[in-house]
């Protein structure tokens, strides 16, 4: 177990290094740089900008250095927790992200919780009552959930939320709570606003998970060991929970890692549509503005979450399945 863990941790570190490199290269690959954006903004106000001025900005920001030097500077800073300076925000990247990351995590984990809490029972029900009305209904809703694009679902739900529940559109807080200190009322307001993003981000994943849970349970129900356990006198419920469901959790746990990725990578556009004060819109803007240290740090953190998610799902699998443990 110890060797398994340390091996996995080493892989994770290596993957992270590669990811940091890739994210840096991707950001660099976009045409132009932040200095040109500064120049364009200034030119838009009527100021006259010379090539020398642009170059001066470049030198000031270190953009004139070769890319590997920039990468090295960024990486060595990142290791020490210094992700550089956000030019657009005129604040350290760490600070900007720290304000918003907790909300991103709250949304992501609420969404995951929602997906599993809804899909596992429905998947089991669908498998046990195959071809029943409930099974067909859950399939239909599931396919709709898969087919509707997130941003459209977001718009529809915002409209419904506003019209029928009188909820303020978008954001994670009502205006009166936006800058208020944390209180019980603010938590309730926050949870109420969490419903729409969680539904939007979680619907497709939930539909997918229902299908895979259903298939996994169906697979197990026909297995010989289920019949053998039934022949020893277990009641249908004991049987279902102890054997097929327990077995079906393995493939579900195995995909936990990329479920998390899916939720987080789907978040920026949804966050934009819903005007969420989390890292999603921050990330989109950073990419548009070529605010490279901020964008790089966000890509890096998203990847870190993915890698952690994969690690957790591997760990769960080891705990769930002795056959993996014994190898």
């Amino acid at each position: 177990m110890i060797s398994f863990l340390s091996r996995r941790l080493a892989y994770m570190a290596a993957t992270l290094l590669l990811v940091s490199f890739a994210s840096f290269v991707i950001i660099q690959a976009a045409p132009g740089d932040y200095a040109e954006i500064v120049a364009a903004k200034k030119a838009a106000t009527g100021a006259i900008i010379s090539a020398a001025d642009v170059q001066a900005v470049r030198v000031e920001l270190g953009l004139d250095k070769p890319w590997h030097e920039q990468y090295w500077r960024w990486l060595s800073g990142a290791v020490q927790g210094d992700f550089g300076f956000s030019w657009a925000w005129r604040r350290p990247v760490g600070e900007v992200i720290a304000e918003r990351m907790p909300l991103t995590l709250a949304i992501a984990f609420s969404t995951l919780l929602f997906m599993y809490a809804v899909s596992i029972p429905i998947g089991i029900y669908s498998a046990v009552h195959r071809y029943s009305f409930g099974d067909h209904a859950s399939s239909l809703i599931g396919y709709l959930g898969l087919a509707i694009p997130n941003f459209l679902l977001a718009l529809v739900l915002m409209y419904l939320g506003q019209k029928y529940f009188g909820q303020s559109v978008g954001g994670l807080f009502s205006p009166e709570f936006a800058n208020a200190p944390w209180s019980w009322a603010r938590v309730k307001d926050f949870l109420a606003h969490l419903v729409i993003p969680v539904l939007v981000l979680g619907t497709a994943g939930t539909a997918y998970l229902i299908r895979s849970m259903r298939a996994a349970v169906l697979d197990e129900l026909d297995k010989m060991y289920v019949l053998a356990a039934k022949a020893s006198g277990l009641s249908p419920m004991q049987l279902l929970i102890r054997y097929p469901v327990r077995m079906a959790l393995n493939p579900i746990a195995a995909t936990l890692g990329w479920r998390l990725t899916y939720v987080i990578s789907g978040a920026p556009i949804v966050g934009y549509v819903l005007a969420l004060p989390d890292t999603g819109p921050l990330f989109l803007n950073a990419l548009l503005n070529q605010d490279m240290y901020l964008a790089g740090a966000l890509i890096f953190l998203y990847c870190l979450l993915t890698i952690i998610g994969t690690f957790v799902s591997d760990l769960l699998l080891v705990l769930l399945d002795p056959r993996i443990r014994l190898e």
Partner: protein
Amino acid sequence: MMIAPIDTPVLSVRGLSIALDTRDGHAVPITQDVSFDIARGEVLALVGESGSGKSVTALALMQLLGANLKVARGEIALHTQDGFRADVAKLGARGKGIEAIRGARMGMIFQEPMSSFSPIHTIGQQIAEVVTVHEDVGRKAARARAAELLGKVGIPDPVGALDRYPSEFSGGMRQRAMIARALICGPSLLIADEPTTALDVTIQGQILELLRSLQRDLGMAILFITHDLGIVAQMADRVAVMYSGRIIESAPVRDIFRRPAHPYTRALLDAVPRLGDIDRGRRIRPIAGSVPNIFDVPPGCRFHPRCPVAVLPRCAELQPPRYASGRHEVECVHGEKVLA
């Protein structure tokens, strides 16, 4: 309460018919009018080719038929030593009634020891579970019982084996563990559905020997389902031969081998290779044709299209009568003459 006479069979099956519900709403009979008794401590072998309905019959005895199969008619009277009696056919496939019988009064072992255990639970969990389901026993006591049974079925280091996973056991060991699981609550009847078919021959011999000795020690009855006449000769007290969903002959094991009365039974025996066949110039005679498709069963005697002694048109039109001489019964037009 009436105390049953000592010679009341443990299991008495009368007129059991199992039907398959097809998608278009028809009920296709899989077995018809199956009747047999199993006496206390007796080993009855149910013999037949694949598709003859023997496994389905075994499953029906514990109400374990698949969703599209059902007991259409008949009685499955269970009568255990402690005075318990029930008609399993009337209990239905769900509920406390049948659950209290499964694993406690009737145990079952299956053909595939490899897949009869869940791969992610320990052997000990899966055997002790049977005790906790049926008896008001703590987990520790159940574990101790499981270890005791594992020892009884010949597993070395039974206490250590409790915490092992099925994948750490060989096929033979798993079948031993399966036997322990089926017997841990002391059932009066063990149903063994081809328990050695998936094992190699030496292991097969060991398992059969184990079953025989457990049967003698515990005084339980066994319904042994097989297509292997060698195993029948070794294990059974009595034999029932099934063909296309009907029991066409039943007799004490000696009579089956010495005086088979049904042409199908004779053909089965002729199809068995024996040591020295080649020296004596004897050839195995396979039975021409094959078991009828259940959706297209021939009228009259189901064996008549393959039968060398069929009396036509009578055998193709009428269900042959059943003749009995002592404990030897046969369903054939020639029955009276042959048994005489």
